[in-house]
């Protein structure tokens, strides 16, 4: 523990904001803190795990467990996913390809791009979504289909970020610039969701926070 107690100054009537500007004139960031154990009071959404409604034609499921350094399930963790639609488009004004329409299929299938799922007592989660398309990358490279994932839990003072790729997209994965930046094939393999034999459209992706097979995490 740091012996550095902070006692904020008493505010006066002249006070207008709680953030000072730094020497560069930019506002200093608000620090992250853990979600703690009680996030379920506010954060779960009934439709959170359904990026598209269950039963949507072409829907896939991605499920698995979140495990700690002892191999124990992490319950009451929250996973969030963000991904392109099957055409590789984002319902967002900063997608520079002019995707004004927003959601895939003209919104007809209710594709949201975003998923949020709590883990259960066994550390399990499950998303229903559509397989994202490939994405352009500078210099002509192409990103393989992937989802960005944020993991929040008690014991994580900041979210950790990883990516989900697909085991049946081998050619695209080989050409992916992010996977290509990870030299160790065993580490790279932690980012690949495994197609489940005999269960078309179902993928397994476990997140290991620590240990020999720990998932690769990213700084964004």
């Amino acid at each position, binding site marked *: 523990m740091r012996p550095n107690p*902070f006692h904020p100054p008493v505010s006066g009537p002249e006070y207008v904001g709680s953030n000072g500007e730094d020497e560069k004139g930019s506002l200093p*960031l608000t620090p992250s*803190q853990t979600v703690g154990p009680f996030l*379920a*009071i506010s*954060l779960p959404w009934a439709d959170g795990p359904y990026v598209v409604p269950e039963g949507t034609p072409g829907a896939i499921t991605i499920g698995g467990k979140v495990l700690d*350094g002892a191999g124990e399930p992490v319950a009451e963790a929250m996973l969030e996913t963000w991904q392109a639609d099957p055409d590789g488009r984002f319902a967002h004004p900063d997608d520079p390809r002019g995707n004004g329409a927003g959601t895939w299929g003209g919104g007809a299938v209710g594709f949201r791009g975003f998923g949020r799922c709590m883990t259960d007592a066994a550390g399990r989660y499950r998303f229903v979504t559509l397989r994202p398309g*490939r994405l352009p990358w*500078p210099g002509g490279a192409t990103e393989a289909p992937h989802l960005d994932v944020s993991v929040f839990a*008690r014991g994580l003072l900041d979210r950790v970020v990883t990516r989900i790729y697909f085991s049946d997209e081998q050619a695209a994965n080989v050409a992916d610039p992010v996977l290509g930046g990870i030299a160790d094939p065993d580490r790279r393999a932690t980012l690949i969701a495994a197609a489940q034999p005999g269960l078309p459209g179902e993928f397994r992706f476990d997140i290991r926070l620590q240990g020999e097979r720990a998932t690769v995490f990213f700084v964004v």
Partner: protein
Amino acid sequence: MTTNPLLDPRVLPSYPRPVPGVHPPLDTPAYRSTLLRAPKQPAIVLPQGLTEVTGPLLGEDRVVVADADLTTRHAGEPLGERIIVTGRVRDSDGRPVPGTLIEIWQANAAGRYAHKIDDHLAPLDPNFDGAGRCLTDSEGRYRFVTIKPGAYPWANHRNAWRPAHIHFSLFGRAFTQRLVTQMYFPGDPLFALDPVFNSVPDPKARERLVCRLDMSVTEPDWALGFRWDIVLRGREATVFEPRERGRERR
């Protein structure tokens, strides 16, 4: 499937990475739950592509005005000190972040969460569930009416107590801006003893987690007002290439 559409590199924004000292290191042993959960291997720098500079723009259909008042959602009024918590959400370049979803959760005035796994021997309040949400307005402003949460004990170490706090979750407009944090109240004597609060390395950054009493927010004969401004990562419209400002993970 998209096959290499023309991507104009001049218009994709990038989000410079936070300077060291702002966000807590994941490996903070004084907070015991980190021991088996904080990743041990260094994180890999992810160049910001389309997935990272976009993000969910949610909320309109998930929020009603009443969600921002945690004191009026039940049959009676909750016990405790009624307070107003308000402020602005901006990015580090000073731009307001409008229309972004804020979700909060907190203990009641007695320091008890309305959650089945909270076993603190303090009373639940049938008139308080501790959950709220709102969207920021066009200037990035938000405002909640709630009850001042109590301090509570936790199992981190012997006689460990959390300073009173409200949890905040914010999306911003891009995956890179996502933030979950906690807001604290001024002058709390538990600050010096709390490993979560003290996990923020820079004392000036820690200070930014503390709201301030503001008499212009306070409503006479009704509720004390506190102001807390939130700053998310800034955005640069620049070339589409990895930007490496230090290797510290965010």
